[in-house]
């Protein structure tokens, strides 16, 4: 009898506080599995954001720091410079990374900080109850965009991967999704690759993961996966934007 699938040691036993069907849970698992499979659990240091994944420090079994809102890349910079041989990652939501933390992520990329960012784009502020994020789609309703995002008032959604891919030292930039099993497998591959690139010291790597927020989208978890596929992917294409030659 062979194990096809079981819980990775990269996750603690703690049950998550996430809403039913929240894909944060899947993404956690992919990160944890990647660390385990690459043998990095023993030297990994993760940085949790402020957002729904604020308690990520309770869920990953490696060493963890909880950063202030948006500053995970700065925090990770401090950590990685102290322990250059560690596997450092930030796990950040779209409010955290693309809004308040925009300067920090751009500059971590510019400096080519040798850590990995897992960027969970669910097009909304989950934790605080559904406010507009920089990534909220045009027409998408949010509590601070009650009539839907209006491009004349609030602009067009920010495509973070496309933007960061203009920065030379952002050597690995890829957007993935977790709305079905094949995409989950691809997402895992990208995350693993990002860690490999980090350990080779090639520069900064980021994996943008499209994720759902059924609670604040006002949908069932199953409907939310469909909405992601039909609405987010057309604007946020699933794609690799940058790859260091060495790991192609």
């Amino acid at each position, binding site marked *: 009898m062979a194990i*096809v*699938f079981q*819980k990775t040691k990269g996750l603690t036993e703690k049950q998550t506080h996430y809403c*039913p*069907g929240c894909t944060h*849970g899947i993404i956690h698992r992919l990160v944890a599995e990647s660390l385990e499979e690459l043998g990095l659990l023993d030297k990994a240091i993760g940085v949790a954001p402020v957002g729904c994944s604020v308690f990520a420090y309770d869920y990953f079994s490696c060493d963890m720091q909880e950063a202030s809102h948006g500053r995970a890349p700065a925090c990770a910079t401090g950590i990685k410079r102290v322990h250059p041989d560690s596997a450092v990652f930030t796990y950040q939501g779209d409010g955290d990374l693309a809004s308040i933390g925009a300067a920090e992520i751009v500059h971590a990329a510019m400096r080519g900080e040798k850590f990995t960012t897992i960027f969970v784009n669910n097009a909304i502020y989950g934790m605080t109850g559904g406010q507009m994020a920089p990534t909220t789609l045009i027409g998408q309703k949010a509590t601070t965009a009650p009539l839907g995002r209006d491009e004349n008032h609030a602009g067009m959604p920010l495509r973070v991967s496309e933007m960061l891919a203009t920065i030379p030292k952002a050597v690995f930039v890829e957007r993935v999704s977790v709305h079905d*099993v094949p995409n*989950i497998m691809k997402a895992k591959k990208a995350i693993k690759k990002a860690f490999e690139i980090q350990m080779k010291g090639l520069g900064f790597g980021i994996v943008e993961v499209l994720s759902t927020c059924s609670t604040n989208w006002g949908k069932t*978890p199953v409907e939310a996966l469909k909405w992601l596929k039909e609405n987010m992917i057309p604007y946020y294409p699933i794609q690799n934007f940058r790859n260091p030659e060495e790991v192609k």
Partner: protein
Amino acid sequence: MAGKVTFDENRCKGCELCTTVCPVKIVIMDKDKINIKGYHPATVKEMDKCIACGSCARMCPDVVITVEKL
């Protein structure tokens, strides 16, 4: 190619994601049960049909499911 799936029932949040990805459509919600979280947990009724593909487990956000190949 028979498989066996096990549910860590009290972790289940009843989100139903696992039920949508099973190629043989055997994962269902157990409407007769309520777990300690207050949800109807997912379960498999016709285990013998399982092909141990692992999809249900990979889709589950709450690592409820373990899959074995017999």
